[in-house]
Every structure is written in C-alpha cells, then in structure tokens.
C-alpha cells in the first residue's frame, strides 16, 4: 500500500457540500439532511453514528447513489453525482460502490460464487469467475464457494456479502449495520475482515449504532437532525488514514461514549 505523507493528503473519495434532502410524507415536508458537509478520503475507515431519525439512513442512501439529494453537491471521486439519472446512478452503483447489508441480502438457491458474481454480470466485467473467486478468497470463504446461502452460517453469509461488495473493486464499501444480525463473536469476526480490508487500502464507511463497532473505525461522524454534530477527524487534517499499526492510532481512538 502507498504511504501518504501528512503534507500531501490522499485524494478525497467523497465530498459532500451543503447537502440537503427533503422528503414529502403526505402533506408534510421532512427535512432529513440539513446542509451536510463532509469529506472522506481514500482508505478512510469511517463510522457514521446517530439515533434513528438523525438522517443516517438518508445519508447512506445518497452516499450509495440509491437516492439523490434535493440540494447541495455530492462528488464521488471528483464526479458530481447529485443530479444523475437513475440509469447513470445504477452504473455508478455497479462500478464504485459495494454494499453490505444488515440482513445479507443473498439470493437464495444461488451458490456463494454466483452471488459474488452478480454485480459483475451487470457491469459486463471480464473474467467474472476469477474475480469472484479472488473476492471469496479475500474473505477466506473459498471452500464454501459452491454452497447455497441456506447451507451457510450467519457469519459466512455476511462474508459472502462482503465478497460480493468487493468483487467490483469498488471505491467505497458501504456497510449498513453489518453486525446487526450476528452474535457478538461472529460480529467480531466480520469486523476483523473489514479491518483487514481497510489495512489493504479499502475505503470503508459503516453505518452503525454499536459503539464496539464504531470504536474499530479510524473516524466517527455523529449525526443529529440531519447535521454533523461531531467528527473526530478529517482525513486531510489528520494527514490521512493510516493503517491500524500507525503511531497515530492512539490519538484517533475515540473516547468511549
């Protein structure tokens, strides 16, 4: 991996500028995001926390290009994606974003390998089989490649889901409560994998309300009422996301909540 000096911070992957999102629920307007500004740089490991209603789901949807903001700018790898069509968004989701869901969302009756290949089939990638195998290897699940989801444990299912997110070599992995459906030991196992992926250079954003999970991340962004209320570090200011073994690690571990 590339070591970044504090002088030249890594390039931003995500830049949010005064982001707004207003929903209409019946006749009422719900202001889910109220002017959010946030920058996430390459190889950052960010936890987004907040109570329900804080806007973290909305933020996740927008970050994942499942939705577009009603105001402000969202730049993903330098490209403004805040006003793109559904079709263009689908293309970006397929190439740049790897989702990991709380409830795994694997296709039943489909082998682990085929599940991992799924995103590749939509972007017409070459060498799908090899790339899927490589992704499964990275989550140490190659021996379960031809098992179906109902033959896998919860932790194994989530590892398949992570492999699926990795298959496209996405710019960011967006994990929505990745340990929410798992017991704590299995949850640890999943977090170990995410830690390792981060160490290998992957940018990871986790939406969670579990402090144990958040504590593993290099940076914690707290939301309330659609705004950032605390952010323990901007990658730029701190001079980049360092691997967990980095000397600055102690400074970045947040105080227990």
């Amino acid at each position: 991996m590339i070591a970044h000096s504090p002088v030249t911070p890594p390039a931003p992957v995500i830049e949010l500028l005064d982001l707004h999102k207003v929903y209409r629920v019946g006749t009422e307007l719900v202001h889910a995001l109220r002017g959010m500004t946030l920058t996430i740089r390459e190889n950052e490991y960010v936890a987004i926390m907040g109570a329900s209603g804080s806007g973290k789901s909305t933020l996740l949807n927008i970050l994942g290009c499942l939705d577009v903001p009603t105001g402000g700018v969202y730049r993903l790898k330098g490209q403004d994606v805040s006003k793109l069509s559904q079709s263009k968004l689908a293309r970006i989701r397929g190439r740049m974003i790897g989702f990991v869901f709380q409830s795994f969302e694997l296709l039943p009756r489909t082998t682990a390998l085929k599940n991992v290949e799924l995103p590749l089939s939509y972007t017409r990638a070459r060498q799908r089989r090899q790339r899927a195998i490589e992704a499964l290897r990275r989550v140490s699940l190659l021996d379960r490649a031809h098992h179906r989801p109902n033959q896998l444990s919860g932790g194994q299912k989530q590892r398949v889901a992570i492999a699926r997110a990795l298959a496209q070599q996405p710019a960011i992995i967006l994990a929505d409560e990745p340990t929410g459906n798992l017991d704590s030991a299995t949850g640890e196992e999943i977090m170990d994998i995410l830690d390792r992926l981060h160490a290998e250079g992957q940018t990871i954003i986790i939406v969670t309300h579990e402090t144990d999970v958040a504590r593993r991340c290099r940076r914690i962004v707290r939301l309330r009422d659609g705004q950032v209320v605390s952010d323990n570090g901007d990658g730029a200011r701190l001079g980049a996301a360092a691997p967990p073994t980095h000397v600055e690690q102690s400074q970045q571990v947040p105080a227990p909540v």
Partner: protein
Amino acid sequence: MRALRLVIAVLLYVPDRVTAMLGNVWTALVQIWANKIRSLLTVLGIIIAVTSIITVVSLVEGFGNYVTNFLRGLGTNMMVVFPQVVRGPRGEVLRRAEMTIEDIQSVDRFAAAIRRTSPLIFGSATIEYGRQQVTGVTLRGTNEFFQPIRNFYVDAGRFFGAVDVEAGAPVCVLGREVLRKLECDESIVSDYVHLDNQRFQVVGLLESKGSFMGENQDEMVIIPWTAGLKMYPNYRKYLAFYVESMSEKDIPEAEGQLVRILRARHGLKTGDVNDFGIFKQDQILQEFNKIRLIATSVLAGIVSISLLVGGIGIMNVMLVSVTERTREIGLRKSVGAHRRDILLQFLTEAVVLSTVGGAIGIALGYGLITMAAMHPNMVEAKVPLWSVALALGFSAGVGIFFGIIPAFKAAIIHPIDALRHE
C-alpha cells in the same frame, strides 16, 4: 481506427448479451422449479391451447392428406353424372329426370374432350357362397372401362370385358372385404356365387383400397351394367355414368360439352335447370374444406380463450413473483442492475414460463396423436413441424404480452423502497 474499435466493441458486446440472456433463462428455470405446482397451474391454459393446436392441426392435416390421396386414387379426370329430379321452391317435382343409355352414348360420341364413359348402376345385394351369406353388399353395374376410369384394378383373375357387357353376362368382380366376409380365399375365382338369388360367376378380385368417409370401397361387387339392368329393370331410364376427360385440365371443357349435349337431348330451354347432376372431385374438396374451416374455427376459439386465460394466469403469477422478490430486486439494483436488466429478467421469466407450458403442450399433443394413431380406423396423422413452431411462437408471444406489465412494475421499483420491503 474508430470503426475497428466499434467492431471490437460489438464482438465483445454480443456474447456478453447472450451470456446475460442465458443467465436470465437459468434464473427463470430455477425460479419455476422452486415453485413447481404454482408454475404448472399457471401454465395450464397455455398447455391446453398448445395441445389443441398440435392435435387439431395434425388431425386436419392428416385428413387433408388422406382426402388428397383418395382423390388421386379415384383418377384425377373423373366425373360422375346422374339424373336429378328438378324441384320447385316448395319441393314439388317440376320435372322427372331421365337418363338413358342413348344419352350416355351421345355424350361418348359427340363430346370431344371426353375420352370414355361408363354407365353406372347403384345397388345393394345379398351375396351367397356355399353356406356363407353377406347382406347389404354394395353392388355396382358398370362397363369394361371401370378400371382405368376409377383407377381401381383387379389383382386376381380378370375384369369383365366388352363382350360380357354386350351380352349382359352373369359375371362379377369381388372386393377383398366381401371375400373376407365370405370366409374364402382367391380360389373363389371362376366359382359361382348368388347375388340376390341369381347365379354369377366370379371372374376377378379387386385390389384392396380401404375405406373412405365411412364407405368401404372393398366391400363391393361389380357386375356388367347390362346384367345389372336385368336385376333392376327400373334403372333403364335412370342411369348414372362415369365420364373420363382427355386430361385433368380438360375437365371444365368436358363438363361444358356434356351439359350442352344432355340439355339438348332432354329438350331443356334457356333458363331451365339441369335435370342431372355432376359430381366432381373438387366438390369433395369443397366439402372437406368446409369441415376444415369448422375445425379451424373451433380450434381458434379454444386456443384464443385458453391463451387469454393462460396469459392472465402468467401475468397474475408474475405480479405475485415481483412482490415476493421485491428485496431481490432492491439488491440487484443496489449492485448495479439497470431498469432494463430487471425488466429483461422478469420478461424472460414470463416467456420461459409460458414456453415451458408450450413445450408440455407439444409433448401432450404428440402423445395424443400417437395414441390416436393406434386406432385401426384412424387416418395417418403426423404433427407438422410448422404447428410446433406456431405453438411455441404463440406461447412465447403470450409470455411477452402478459409478462411486460409485471416486468415493468419490477423495473420501476425504487431500490430504497425495495430494500426496505418486508
């Protein structure tokens, strides 16, 4: 350079789309297999429609070939002329029809397009041979030209000749079925039988020709028409006759000539209706075409109703499937599926479903036809390839037509709503 890159892009694109399509088909098959009973019930309408198409088309085709072969067997330039009573609008007899041997001879002599004629007496007789007796055997009185005109020959012994006809000799030719019913073999040739208590000598046996439209052509006894007149003297004024034209294309000309001659001889004035009828092969064809039309209309009715029912069934089950798999749709969209990918996936599923129904229907149709073919009196019916293609086309079409709405519904689901769906 740009053109080359375009060609390469297309070369890469096409197999990719094929792979994607095959993937969709596989997904569809897995889905159908996972819901076996539901899928089977869904495609029942399609199965019925396709089974009907296959069986009815095959039967109609089979009968069509049969009729054509029969007509060819009759001799292609043959007509039958017969006296026909002229009736008024209330059914009252306006003119008694007559047809004498002189009429026939005039036609034979003066109609240039006619090669030869043969008087014809229709009868029914009881035949006795030794202790065996068969009643209600078809009796035909005719002359020595019967064989070439009807394209129907003896294959044992001989046919009676002009001398026999001239003399009204008591000789006869038997059909194979008569022989079977009399329980005897070819040794009957040159032996004697009784036809309605009159002694006839058997001179020949007709080749076997099978039955047509309920009439067994092999259960027939043929005698010289002059001998027939001795049995049925009343026929002297009511003869029918075969006409053979010079060639197949001379039939209209031959018909015109014989009509002119007979009208003149019968003293019919302009505007009078013919007091005789002419039976041509194209009338058999017309009769058959009426049957074919009825069968086709009934088929069209059954098929359109079952296809409609089947199509609605498919639409219904696809709508259920889309709802059931909303989360799957959400997942697929979140990993990069475009609307058209989802649309194609569900459309493929509908088409595969209906085509599977079509395939089952084709198999059933084949089965029914094969079973029907085992019946001894059944005509030879084969499933024409085009009916298979038609059936598959119909079922795929139904899949597309009724699958498009559910597929569209699936395609426009918003990924966030889909992922939130319980």
